[in-house]
């Protein structure tokens, strides 16, 4: 078996350099690679381009790398929960490319699947379509979108094994499987790392071929953004 298990996040991010493009899984704070983000902050690599649906909150998730000004450009679909982000964007300190969520997902998937570009109806007639080729299929206009290219992808799963197979939990799956496919180097952090053979192959979401490095995160804060509950009557 190919050795994929690394000692921890510091070893997992080896090879990260200034100016690289990274993908980071998660939706809001759900399913984000918490430990890898902390290691990136410690590492200090800067001028990073980060592809991630959101940009964390001010003091958690990718917000931590905004605080240290390590991010040059964000490619996201929604960045509403982060005041620092908004400040840096409006002042021009941070480049931002906002793209539709489904297009973001598909550009990741296409990247990992050997599809260089595709047509989607999302964004036609809006500023997202500016400068993009338009073609009409079945009477409906579509715009050409290209696959991403990323040096590293950081994903987070619930369980993983030594072979790099991953299983996600609940809605923490989100962008993680496509980003795992897309990264030239995919680093997976998991809540529970088990020996090969302990995961039922029928239940694997991301096959190990897409994962180059894997480790068990020391701890997970798993912060909740909007705690909504109902009362028992």
């Amino acid at each position, binding site marked *: 078996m190919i050795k994929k298990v690394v000692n921890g996040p510091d070893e997992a991010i080896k090879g990260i350099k200034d100016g690289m493009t990274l993908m980071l899984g998660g*939706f*809001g*704070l*759900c*399913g984000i690679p918490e430990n890898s983000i902390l290691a990136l902050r410690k590492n200090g690599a800067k001028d990073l381009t980060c592809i991630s*649906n959101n940009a964390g909150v001010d003091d958690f998730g990718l917000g931590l790398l905004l605080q240290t000004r390590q991010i040059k450009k964000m490619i*996201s*679909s*929604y*960045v*509403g*929960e982060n005041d620092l982000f*908004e400040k840096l*964007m*409006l002042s021009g300190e941070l480049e*931002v490319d*906002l*793209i*539709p*969520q*489904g*297009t*973001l*997902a*598909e550009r*990741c*998937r296409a990247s990992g699947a050997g599809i260089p570009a595709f047509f*989607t*109806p*999302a*964004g*036609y*007639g*809006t*500023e*997202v379509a500016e400068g993009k080729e338009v073609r009409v299929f079945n009477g409906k206009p579509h715009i050409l979108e290209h696959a991403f290219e990323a040096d590293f992808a950081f994903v987070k799963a*619930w369980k993983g094994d030594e072979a790099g197979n991953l299983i*996600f*939990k*609940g*809605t*923490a*799956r*989100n*962008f*993680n*499987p*496509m980003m795992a496919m897309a990264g030239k180097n995919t680093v997976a952090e998991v809540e529970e790392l088990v020996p090969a053979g302990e995961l039922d192959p029928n239940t694997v*979401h991301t096959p190990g071929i897409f994962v180059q490095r894997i480790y068990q995160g020391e701890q997970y804060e*798993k*912060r*909740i*953004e*909007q*705690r*909504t*509950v*109902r*009362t*028992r009557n």
Partner: protein
Amino acid sequence: MLDKNGIAKRIAKELQDGYFVNLGIGIPTLVANYIPDNIEVEFQSENGILGMGPFPFEGEEDADLINAGKQTITALNGASFFDSATSFAMIRGQHVDMTVLGAMEVSENGDIANWKIPGKMVKGMGGAMDLVASADNIIVAMMHTNRAGESKLLPKCGLPLTGVGCVKKIVSNMAVLEVTENGFKLLEVAPGVSVEDVKNATAGKLIIEGDIPEMDI
């Protein structure tokens, strides 16, 4: 005049048995509270769940189980989880039957603007552009006028667009309107609202044919 819950209640009457429905953030989320007793619908949230249930009981919140508004939720029997590419395949592939979302502006030809106010608010479009570009059945839930009292139903949107020619129906605090080739067609007025009131609050072309019934909610 309806409040937010009234708008949600009226939209809930558009639901049909067997529908898969995507509800946006804000007023649309409230629609889930008013599903008619005699029908079954399933809610899709674009971050990756089909079969979304109500908020969890206190103490049972799960950080790994949220909706597109990042709120903690539950999964009903028969629910499924999936990745974002699969989720938007459901949406663009028109497997979702009805989409309800909010808007800052709608134009008389069905354009919608709801994601950006240049220089002021730039949060991003999230899944809204994919949803409006793909769904056949898009209902907008919104207040008829903005906080300054200006109409949100316009001849042409002034804000950056989310999608073009896609809105089919609008349920506002004042009226139900259908977007037709010739403009906004008034279908119903809210209790206590006159046709004249709707006329005054609608900047875009308004079509009024015959007697306009009052909403039954």
